[in-house]
């Protein structure tokens, strides 16, 4: 039995835990690590089951579908990358399981091939955020700030679902006398808020009328690749025009690391890259520990798009949802890694493993530096100085600054089909981004159940144009025309906050 300290990679909180292994390294189990300050020994369901995600099928080393030795796959990757024009290349890494050291190495690899199309999933927001406000999307806040807040606004965020380990901090704040206000399409089913500002899907703009509610508050929201940029500018505007602070949680563990380390590099938005692939402008893709088809909504579409590539290189510890990759290179699972990440609070955390494999793969394709060198560079660029890494310290601090943003407009929903009109609201959770379909149902209102003629055990069909999904349902206290989904459906969200969908009883 071996007990190793580790970090959960389920979301940007980075809960501490132990992975216990039997001698043979086979039977793994998660043990709660009471000493970790992020989570005090508690874990959400993703963390509790973390060991099972390490039991997935591992990636093979392959070239053109043939299994090869790792060296050969690496060599093939190097050769093929050399053969491409820089503008035809793109590098993507959703920073869920990658260390600061790997990010440094990844960026220099891209630079070495002259590639400026690097995405960590959040580039679409760069245009929306003024330079002085960049710190808000880059860095979060220590949880102690939540504990001590006197007014908390949950901005379209259900802490129990999105970030369960945040929920207890909000409950704690409430015990300390905080007032909790939620701004949402539906009332929180657990009643965590003292007050609800219920937003009608077609009238999101009207939140502006409630601006004074945001005075002296801590606004907590979420930033994911799918966050509507207009919603982000809305949050920034609320923040800028009231005395408040804005705390954005992110789904990927090392989002903060990726933001800070990738600051001065050539970047391109994830969705633009995919468009470029679609148009044939981008011909080669290097995916670092990113199961794009597993993570994105409407994953099948993503797989279809990437099949148009001349070259797809995947570096991953586990098999992904793609089976079209030209070159696959097997790296180590997250818990085995040597390296650091920065969580949303700004704590620098050590993963706890020994392996440098993933880093070495990139270094073999590129410059070939040692771990220490890359580690030092990461520390320097994060501004960490020489002090020892201590999980109890908020090493990456943020400073509040004043900034201005223009009053944003939220565009009205367009499109939608005939038939009954419903709005689909994705409620993301830690399972969402890890290629796992956590739920097999959507939530609808009791009125909708009646209107659609549904009975217990029935399924609903949700459709948006060509895209369709058949799925079970649950009754919740929701506005009549809202369909809430924690499941990843084959329906891509439209530009709006919500997606207009047709909903009917599945025959």
């Amino acid at each position, binding site marked *: 039995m071996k007990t190793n300290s580790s970090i959960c990679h389920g979301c940007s909180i980075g809960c501490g835990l*132990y992975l216990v292994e039997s001698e043979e390294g086979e039977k793994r189990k998660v043990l709660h690590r009471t000493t970790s300050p992020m989570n005090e020994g508690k874990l959400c369901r993703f963390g509790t089951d973390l060991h099972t995600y390490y039991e997935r099928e591992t990636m093979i080393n392959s070239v053109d579908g043939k299994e090869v030795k790792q060296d050969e796959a690496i060599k093939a990757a190097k050769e093929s990358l050399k053969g491409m024009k820089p503008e035809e290349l793109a590098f993507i890494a959703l920073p869920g399981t990658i260390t600061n050291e790997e990010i440094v190495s990844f960026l220099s690899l891209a630079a070495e091939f002259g590639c400026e199309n690097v995405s960590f999933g959040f580039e679409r927001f760069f245009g929306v955020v003024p330079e002085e406000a960049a710190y808000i999307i880059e860095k979060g806040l220590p949880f102690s700030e939540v504990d001590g807040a006197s007014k908390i606004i949950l901005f379209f965020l259900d802490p129990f679902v999105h970030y369960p380990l945040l929920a207890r901090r909000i409950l704690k704040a409430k015990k300390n006398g905080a007032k909790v206000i939620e701004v949402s399409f539906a009332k929180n089913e657990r009643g965590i808020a003292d007050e609800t500002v219920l937003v009608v899907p077609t009238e999101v703009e009207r939140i502006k009328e409630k601006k004074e509610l945001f005075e002296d508050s801590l606004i907590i929201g979420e930033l994911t690749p799918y966050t509507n940029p207009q919603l982000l500018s809305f949050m920034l505007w609320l923040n800028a025009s009231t005395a408040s602070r804005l705390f954005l949680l992110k789904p990927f563990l090392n989002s903060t690391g990726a933001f800070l380390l990738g600051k001065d590099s050539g970047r391109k938005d994830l969705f633009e890259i995919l468009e470029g692939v679609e148009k044939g402008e981008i011909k080669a893709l290097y995916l670092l520990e990113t199961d794009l088809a597993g993570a994105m909504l409407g994953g099948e579409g993503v797989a279809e798009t990437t099949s148009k590539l001349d070259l797809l290189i995947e570096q991953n510890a586990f098999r992904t949802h793609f089976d079209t990759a030209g070159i696959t290179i097997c790296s180590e699972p997250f818990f085995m890694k040597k390296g650091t990440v920065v969580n949303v609070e700004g704590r620098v955390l050590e993963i706890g493993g020994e392996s440098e494999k993933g880093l070495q793969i990139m270094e073999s394709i590129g410059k070939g530096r040692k771990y220490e060198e890359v580690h030092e560079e990461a520390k320097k660029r994060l501004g960490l100085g020489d002090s020892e890494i201590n999980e109890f310290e908020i090493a990456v601090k943020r400073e509040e600054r004043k900034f201005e943003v223009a009053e944003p407009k939220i565009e009205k929903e367009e499109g939608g089909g005939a038939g009954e009109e419903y709005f689909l609201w994705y409620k993301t959770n830690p399972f969402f981004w890890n290629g796992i379909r956590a739920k097999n149902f959507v939530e609808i209102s009791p009125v909708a159940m009646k209107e659609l003629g549904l009975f217990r055990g029935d399924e609903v069909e949700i459709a948006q144009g060509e895209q369709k999904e058949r799925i079970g349902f649950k009754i919740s206290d929701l506005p009549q025309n809202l369909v809430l989904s924690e499941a990843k459906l084959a329906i891509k969200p439209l530009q709006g906050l919500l997606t207009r969908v047709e909903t009917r009883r599945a025959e």
Partner: protein
Amino acid sequence: MEEVKAKMSRYYLAWAKDDAIRKKGANGGFVTATLVSALEADFIDVALVVKKKSVYEGIPVLTNDPEEIKESSGSLHCVPLNLTKYVVEYAAKKRIGLPTKPCDARGIIEQAKRRQASLENVYMIGLNCGATLHPLRMREIAAYYGLDPDSVVREEIKEGKIFLVSDEEGKEKEKWMKIDELEEKGYGRRDACKSCVTKIPTMADLACGNWGSNDEKKTFVDVLTDKGETLFKNAVDSGYVAIEEAPGKGIETRQRIDAGMQKRAASWKEKMDALKALSRSERFEFYVDALKNCIHCGACKEVCPVCACEEDAKCTGLYDERDSYAISMYNLVRIFHLMDSCIHCGQCEDVCPVDIPLTLIQRRFSERMQRHLGYTPGMDVTKKPPLYETELRWSAEAE
């Protein structure tokens, strides 16, 4: 070499003969020396001990390396760990020796009743237990003492006080305060420990502690079972452990402290029972309100030392995420199933990500049932959990 008398008396003071073990041990290293000698004499295949990572942190280690056992000596009061599931999952087929706080021993006995472990194979060296603290609460105490939590190098609990020693740039600083005083200010032991009335592990094979000992480096040992006697004799005969008979005064002192602790625990229990003064319908509201926060992570079931179910259990199997019940089947079934068997160890609450007061809830439901049944779980492996019985025998008190 001391001879263990043919007919053993029950109480001894004992310590490791090896100076290094004696010095490093909490109270003379008896426990450590006994484990090492049991391994050497082939009574056990492995030992399960708690290895120190820092003052605040210890991890369970399953080992057959005497050096590792020696490295793991000493008491860690900030490690609120229950060892039961490690015995079940990693050493079910092995002969194992381990230190057990009362809740460890009780968990193991409940698992044995459910055929997940065989007591024949498990040597339980009981440790008296006044309490454990959550490590982060201990850090808060350090800060309250005016010490830098990161530089605390030693902690000790004795005579009802918590001692912390910090080493700030080579200078040692010691601070202490009475537990009672700390707890009045909201610092202190885990809630489950505060209200735990089982302080001496009489259900284990040996019960060890400093209560009743007249020397910090001698452990007071209570030999409780034949297995305990075997272990003890072997430790002495093999030359690992030195003993003397416990003085009568020590025996009395130990009893007196134990009784005092039990009384304090009982009064904490009263004090912490937020439901005591509530009416029936208020109680209902309380339960619905507390349990609605559950995110069904399953951690409480996973860590519960008396639950022997695999992943597919009744509580998980009957829970359907699509149900919109006022309280979930998962919670109701779990509470119901533990009515006869909950040992009030608080492990579930320690891991609950939304801080549901699970110890209190489980205790409210189980304690009244256990009282009616005159049944205390985890004490006697021959007593079947009453829920499995065909006919109930009610306690005299309930009649």
